[in-house]
């Protein structure tokens, strides 16, 4: 009897509880572990925007959004478990983890749930001909690498001949993504390119930075995530590497990355796919409908940080895609395949962003059947340690499509051959 009871209890507990709400957008967050410092603001922003839509507009097209949250700790194994636990009725996933993305790419088509890896994941999914269910607009890693080099070209009067650029990267699929692009760019512009890998979780970087001190590269690019960013910036300051010559990708440039190094983090640069700060109209609505009602996610202390804004931005793009899907299919109760259609027809204009309270927040996006990667624009911003704020240094720069596009075609076609996918959009 006892065992029977236990079995019943066990199966009841293990089975989990599938969500019964109407528009299910699960959130696979990582609020614990070495990546929590970056995972928390992103998850908070993401939740808060959906709460705002539910509170202010009564959901999307009158249907409320349900957001089951599942903690992955940035581990792919737990991420897969979370995906399986939440996928019932889900219409969209935006996992902020490149490793998990690689797991989900083949599953997306089978389960018919689109995946949006905003500015991360496998870069070549930008080729919609091959990757029907995966999107990575507005930009991607290879565009990021190209934009960083373009910015440096501009700094150096158009030539990087004989300069040395080092890439300090997280030793994972995320960190390795830009290497091929950088190698091509090094050939094109004649600079020396070297790589320094940092293993998960990234707390141990002494040897890498000693090597940088010895080799004295002119510029350092940082492709880090989580605790690795803080350590890298601290170590760069320790070896007296001039931080204005260091550029991080958009995942390596949040407040929690630079604040621990205090004064010495001044001048650090990072790429940006959207603006930082809380000087946007959407924050007024967030305050009225979310914060003041005590509905803010987490501790409610992340507002205005770069990654909180990234969360808002991801959620905003998701909501717009769902609206588009509702328009196309004439029903409010959209499903995964409908949202996929919505994403593919998505057009974010400056006008639209002004209407949503995101004026001057991010560049315009136009997604098409062949282009799942958007326009790939990003800007460069710099940290001011005194005022504790980011300053935009440039406008949004377009990547070098002569270098990036052929690489995307090549990589996605290799994938298509491997997985025997027929190209679409003809």
């Amino acid at each position, binding site marked *: 009897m006892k065992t029977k009871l236990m079995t019943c209890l*066990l199966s009841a*507990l*293990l*089975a*989990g*509880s599938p969500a019964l709400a109407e528009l299910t957008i699960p959130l696979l*967050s990582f*609020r*614990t572990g070495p990546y*929590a410092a970056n995972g*928390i603001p992103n998850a908070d922003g993401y939740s808060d925007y959906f709460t705002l839509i539910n509170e202010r507009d009564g959901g999307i097209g009158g249907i409320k959004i349900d957001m089951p*949250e*599942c*903690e992955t*700790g940035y*581990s*792919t*194994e737990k991420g*897969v*478990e979370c995906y*399986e*636990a939440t*996928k019932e009725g889900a219409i969209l996933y935006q996992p902020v983890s*490149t*490793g998990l993305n*690689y*797991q989900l*790419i*083949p*599953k997306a*088509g*089978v389960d018919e749930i689109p995946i949006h890896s905003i500015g991360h994941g*496998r*870069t070549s999914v930008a080729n919609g001909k091959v990757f029907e269910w995966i999107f990575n607009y507005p930009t991607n890693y290879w565009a990021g690498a190209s934009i960083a080099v373009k910015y440096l070209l501009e700094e150096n009067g158009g030539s990087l001949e004989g300069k040395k650029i080092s890439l300090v990267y997280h*030793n*994972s*699929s995320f960190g*390795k*993504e830009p*290497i*091929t692009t950088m190698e091509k760019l090094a050939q094109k512009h004649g600079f020396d390119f070297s790589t320094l*890998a940092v*293993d*998960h979780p990234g707390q141990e970087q002494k040897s890498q930075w000693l090597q940088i001190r010895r080799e004295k590269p002119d510029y350092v690019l940082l492709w880090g995530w989580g605790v690795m960013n803080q350590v890298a910036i601290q170590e760069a300051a320790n070896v007296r590497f001039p931080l204005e010559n260091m550029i991080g990708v958009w995942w390596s440039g949040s407040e929690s990355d630079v604040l621990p190094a205090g004064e010495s983090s001044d001048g650090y640069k990072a790429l940006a796919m959207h603006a930082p700060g809380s000087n946007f109209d959407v924050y007024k609505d967030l305050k009225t409908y979310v914060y003041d009602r005590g509905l803010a996610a*987490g501790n409610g202390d992340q507002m205005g940080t770069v990654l909180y804004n990234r969360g808002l931005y991801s959620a905003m793009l998701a909501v717009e895609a769902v609206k588009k899907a509702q328009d196309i299919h004439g029903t409010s109760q959209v499903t995964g395949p409908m949202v996929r259609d919505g994403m593919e027809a998505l057009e974010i204009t400056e006008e639209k962003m002004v209407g949503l309270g995101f004026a001057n927040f991010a560049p315009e996006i136009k997604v098409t059947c062949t282009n799942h990667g958007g326009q790939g624009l990003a800007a460069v911003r710099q940290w001011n340690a005194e005022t504790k704020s980011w300053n935009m240094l440039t406008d949004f720069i377009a990547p070098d499509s002569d270098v990036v596009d052929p690489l995307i075609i090549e*990589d996605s076609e290799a994938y298509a051959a*491997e*997985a025997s996918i027929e190209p679409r959009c003809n």
Partner: protein
Amino acid sequence: MFYREAGDFKTSYAEDNQTFPIKFDRYRYYFVLLVAFGIVPFVVNDYWLNAVLLPFLIYAIAAIGLNLLVGYCGQVSLGTGGFMAVGAYSCYKLMTSFPDVSILIHVVLAGAITAAIGMLFGLPSLRIKGFYLAVATLAAQFFLVWLFNRVPWFYNYSASGQISAPERTVFGVPVTGAETSPWAVYLVCLVFLTISAIIARNLTRGMAGRKWMAIRDMDIAAEIIGVDPLRAKLSAFAVSSFFIGISGALFFAVYLGAVEVGESFGITKSFLVLFMVIIGGLGSIFGSFAGAAFLVLLPVLLKNLLVGSLGWPTDLAAHLELIIIGALIIVFLVAEPHGLAQLWRMAKEKLRLWPFPH
């Protein structure tokens, strides 16, 4: 009352020597097999498969492998993650180089390759033991992970350094890739686990196992009575790595489908499998199952209880989960240092006498 050997007469040597000499035990074993093969495949769904069953089956194979080495032969190893990586990467290379050969053969071959690598890294065990051996195997762990990260040939020069399993079928049913059905994947892993467990169990009952145990209990005495330590230790490393390699291959090809060596086969994996063996019970095949079940099921169970049923915040639940599992491990080891298998053994002893303990 029902659990006893009285009245269960054996009339042949084979009968007397079987794995489960007590009738009740034997029937229970058949029953478990029946449920596992006959019922579960019909009811299993994606969630149960990926969250509970697959990790359990695959870690159980790894735990059996490590238990042969640590529990039976007494050689401490912290290289499990590295050896699993060898299994995964050899399976990947075999799958992509010989697409027409069955995946089942690739998995077994991946095990064989891992066995060879395991023997190589087992060589230091001839000179050193205990903590020093643990450190030597730790070197294997770090070296292998570094190697698979460093040499692009192993991941077919892919831009991300990830390996991903192409679709392969068994009797026309896909078991790797995206389009798999839960029952097929489950059955493949279950068959591997069942065969591994039967082989391991019989090895440990036979001469090989006795030699290993002799080495474990006192290697000098073992040498004096005629056990060749070179053969015994290296065979233990080979057999253990064979099973660990199979589990690594399944972990990559069937369970995750795409892995990154640093994340999936890091030092934490070595510790996880070692904890399974220690908590389950050193020197017991059942203990490997129990340990794997404990460490796979409990986190999922706690998560569903705290987040799903009680509705607590996910981060709080994740932290509590660590605390609870840590505390439970300590409690278990204090209450029963020989692991879950010993608890089971004691329960059986008590059952034999029940309800008349005198």
